[in-house]
């Protein structure tokens, strides 16, 4: 287990590409081969994240946001999931083509992940101390005692009271919020450069949600990590994210920095999502919803996948799939009327 980290190495592509991003997903395609047919779960997703920034990936269930994260971590269930095209470059090296052992060492140390449901994501039969210390013992070659000492420091860092006393507790002995803190502590153990948080607050009470998001934001700032925050909750991302990528049916439909996206959404889907947020000034009125259901990935609608639910849909929408076009050089949207939406006041 080498302790050498390449943190200071310049971020350069191996194949002589221009200086890339810390983590870059390029034209990723993933399909699920099921008995009922092939579900195209991810159809050409590209995004990137750099040190010190937070990218929020937003979308309904089934939009492919979690599968993208699993593919980055290399924990996609195969079968049924298969990567059919694309690249995932971490520090310029493609994770999808590198050797198994090399890729394994990226996990936890290069890119770490916080899962949605900490109760099922933590092993029920081992103490949390064991599960955190395991990383130091197996990946850093530390002794058991040192590993537990570092584990206690981490629990302290994520603000778990009486940290060293709780090392001997099992996951089920923690409350939901505390358990998610354990999960975060475990993800931070090897000091990763990118942290992927997959709906980290979905399973928690609203009051606890805010605490966990604050904690994640604080840690991201202190450690200058890149963070990918996957969520379906628009409220959660507003305070924390720098940029937002909105996904629909396995594609990115809009990407922009957080203020631009909230200020002037340039895709009808984003518009509809923001419209469906409960608002205090419209109390008592019926809540706006997006009509219809998310698409069946076995039969994605022709043209723009959103057209059956879109208020702006016209003939061209079902015939031709809109490309993701840049708007003003800072943001992009995949809609036939993107320019129109961008140009509005």
């Amino acid at each position: 287990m080498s302790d050498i980290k390449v943190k200071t190495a310049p971020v350069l592509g191996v194949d002589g590409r221009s200086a890339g991003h810390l983590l870059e997903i390029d034209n990723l395609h993933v399909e699920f081969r099921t008995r009922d047919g092939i579900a195209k779960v991810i159809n050409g997703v590209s995004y990137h994240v750099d040190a010190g920034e937070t990218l929020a990936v937003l979308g309904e269930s089934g939009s492919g946001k979690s599968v993208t994260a699993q593919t980055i971590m290399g924990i996609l269930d195969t079968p049924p999931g298969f990567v059919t095209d694309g690249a995932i470059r971490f520090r310029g090296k493609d994770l999808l083509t590198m050797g198994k052992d090399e890729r394994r060492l990226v996990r936890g140390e290069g890119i770490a992940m916080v899962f949605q449901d900490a109760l099922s994501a933590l092993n029920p039969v081992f103490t949390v101390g064991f599960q955190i210390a395991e990383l130091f013992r197996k990946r850093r070659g530390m002794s058991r005692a040192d590993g537990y000492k570092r584990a206690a420091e981490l629990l302290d860092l994520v603000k778990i009271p009486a940290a060293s006393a709780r090392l001997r507790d099992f996951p089920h002995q923690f409350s939901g919020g505390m358990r998610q803190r354990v999960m975060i502590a475990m993800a931070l153990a090897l000091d990763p450069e990118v942290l992927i948080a997959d709906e980290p607050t979905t399973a928690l009470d609203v009051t606890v949600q805010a605490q966990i998001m604050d904690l994640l934001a604080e840690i991201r700032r202190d450690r200058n990590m890149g963070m990918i925050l996957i969520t379906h909750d628009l409220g959660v991302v507003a305070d924390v994210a720098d940029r937002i990528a909105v996904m629909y049916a396995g594609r990115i439909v809009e990407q922009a920095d957080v203020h631009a996206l909230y200020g002037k959404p340039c895709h009808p889907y984003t518009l509809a999502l923001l419209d469906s947020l409960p608002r205090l000034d419209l109390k008592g009125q019926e809540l706006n919803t997006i009509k219809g259901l998310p698409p069946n990935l076995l039969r994605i609608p022709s043209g723009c996948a959103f057209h059956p639910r879109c208020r702006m849909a016209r003939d061209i929408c079902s015939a031709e799939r809109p490309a993701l076009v840049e708007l003003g050089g800072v943001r992009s949207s995949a809609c036939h009327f993107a320019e129109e939406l961008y140009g509005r006041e």
Partner: protein
Amino acid sequence: MGRYALRRLLQAIPVFIGTTFLIWFLVWGLPGDPFAGRCGEKQCPAAYVNYMTEKFGLDDPLPVQYLNYLKNLATGNFGQTFNGIEIGELLAQAFPISIKLALVAVAAEALIGITAGVLTGLRRGSFLDNLVLVSTLVLIALPIFVIGIVARYAFGLASVSPEAPWHELIIPGLILGSGSLAYITRLTRVNIVENRRADYVRTAVAKGLSPGRVTGVHLLRNSMIPVVTWLGLDLGALMGGAIVTEGIFNIRGIGGLLFGAISRRESGIVVSIVAILVLVYLIVNLLVDLLYGVLDPRIRYE
């Protein structure tokens, strides 16, 4: 946990008394006379029958006989056979042999069964998986006396020496454990298949642990809970000796002793063996239940 164990041990007392009492009645409920055929072709002289009846108190009512037996048992005295042999000595000879045989069988079940279960569980649908599936079906379907007799000829084993050394017990042990071995394989496989897609296994992979550690520590520990339970209970059951296996290989264990005792109406031996087996069973059960809590910390004892 201590209080729980104590309560379970107290519960064992009525169970122990109830089972031994039942067996005592059942043995005497069997038709037949313990002194028939004891004197060759002729009937035994009345004087002998009277003497024996007097000596073993066979004219007393059954509950009285039973209470006398319990009283002796409490002082560690198992009594004598009708031939005047100390039952305690018979048990001391036979039990270690049966325990050795049971240990060999359970060790084989654990070693081969768990290994085969893990390998097939990880490679579901592979050639190995199908091969093991068919083999376990055959093992479960074949009666033990068929496997035993075939193995005896195949390996050229006549009988095990009276003192039953470990190496001579390997093949009889394998045969004794074959049915459970097949079951353990299946049980392990099912649990591995069920748990290998669990979120915590995925977490372990995401931590960058080696595949061996993910399987050997995170997956295996969770999959072993029902398997260990089964192994424990099986050990308890096998301690009672194996009449068929012991018969085929001429092993002088508890099974043979019990079989002979029932046919000779040696109620003292039968009840003594059952008494010990009941105790073994109760203790093994308790240990398995306690072990369950060690393997799965979510289980609490009230």
